[in-house]
């Protein structure tokens, strides 16, 4: 059975998963998501970027449970959080568990989201409290 990330160039499917950002070689800014165009700090084009691995670990800055959603997925209720990664950038992602509050230490894990026609499992990054 093969597995693929919903956004393949944002994640490395290892255990624990790695989030892929970019680092600008000119100004050393580390950013997520990795950008295909250019640096918001110094204006360098994206060919001046290198991929930058970010640990999927951080602390929760904000959290909200969504009761109504304008799209078919995710199915409500689900909970999203703003997470300050230990490596600097801030990401927003779905969190699992009712115990996540502002200040919680969380870690990323790969959750199966879907299966395509060939049986390939599509996974996405979610976060949960570090036990």
């Amino acid at each position, binding site marked *: 059975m093969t597995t693929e990330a919903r*956004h393949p160039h944002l994640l490395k499917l290892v255990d624990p998963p790695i989030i892929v950002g970019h680092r600008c070689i000119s100004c050393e800014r580390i950013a997520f998501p990795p950008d295909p165009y250019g640096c918001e700090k110094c204006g360098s084009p994206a060919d001046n970027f290198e991929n930058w691995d970010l640990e999927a670990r951080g602390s929760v800055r*904000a959290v909200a449970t969504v009761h*109504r959603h304008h799209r078919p997925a*995710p199915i409500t209720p689900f909970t999203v959080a703003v997470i300050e990664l230990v490596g600097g950038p801030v990401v927003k992602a779905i969190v699992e568990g009712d115990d996540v509050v502002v200040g919680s230490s969380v870690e990323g894990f790969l959750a199966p989201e879907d299966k395509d026609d060939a049986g390939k499992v599509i996974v996405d990054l979610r976060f949960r409290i570090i036990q």
Partner: protein
Amino acid sequence: MTAPSFLSTRPVFVVGIGLHRYQRRSDQTYVSLGLTAVREALTDAGVHWTDVDAAYTGTALLGMGASRIMLSRLGATGIPMTQVENASASGSSSVAQACLEVASGRSDVVVALGVDKPRGGLGAAPGEAGIPNLEAGSIVPFTHFALLASEYMNLHAVTDEQVAKVAVKNHRNGSQNPFAQRQKVRTLDEVLAEPISGSLTRLQCCPVGEGAAAVIIASEDGIDRLGIDRSRAMQVVSSATKTEALYAEGVGIDAALTAETGTAAFEEAGLEPSDLDVLEVHDAFAIEELLYAEALGLCKPGEAATRVESGDFDIGGSCAFSPSGGLLAMGHPIGPTGVGQIAEVVRQLRGEAGSRQQPNARVGMAHMVGIGAVCVVHILRKP
């Protein structure tokens, strides 16, 4: 030293205002909505369509070429017409362009109009930029603001009830406004019912319907030549537009951008936050009034919720926030919203706001933010 404002070189005034009530999507065409607002603005100013030198139409949803098919029904005079799109601030930017055109000396009388009808989605370009993100699809605008609410409420120990009181106030203001989409007084319990996302409930989220708003911008030459009533002409003393700069990781962009744009507007006008009597703020979601009250310097960080509770931001308080009902109650039909704010500020400065009149209003601000992110702020003063 900041450069002298272009608005002080050749002063500009709002001389006419007109609206079509904001409402749920109906069968009424945008042409009919827009013409209602422009005809009312012309009548209010006491000028004829043939006196108008140019028109700007703020619209984000109608598609290309909206202006002429509408405005030519006032007479196909052949004047320059331009659509202005700047997300939620489209109407604000049409006012900014009209002010710039009059201040430049090219025109004496310009119409700034906002008109829109809701479609299936917003069709926002950033989603098409080819920059995938982890949260794609799970965070729509109300959840973006629910997350900001979570962070703010945790930082300042503010409760759900305190945030909801913003909506209670703005629904009360909207109940006095015949142009508001929502015209019902709501209790705290009603506002706290029907959760949408995080602490935000249905009545703490703005309705996106349809409508139109128009203002007529004129120079002193135009006012004199056309014999416009000077006592009802309110001066635009600043027009500031900024886009999101690079802020520290995790800083709320909406508040940081508002702080920068507000500072630029106050500097241009030579005024202080404490000078404001009326503030029409981008309260698409209740939490935003608290964030922007602090970002614009109306109170210290963490103080806004207690200021709302004390009645300080009520009509009759030190500064009336969103006396029109704001986006929460008057509504947010996108293109019209920023123009409607200017109409409300002018009505307040003229002392013509009836039961929702802020006493002795002399200085007012209109503030919009939009996807992108953009922020547009105007300050008006009673001469």
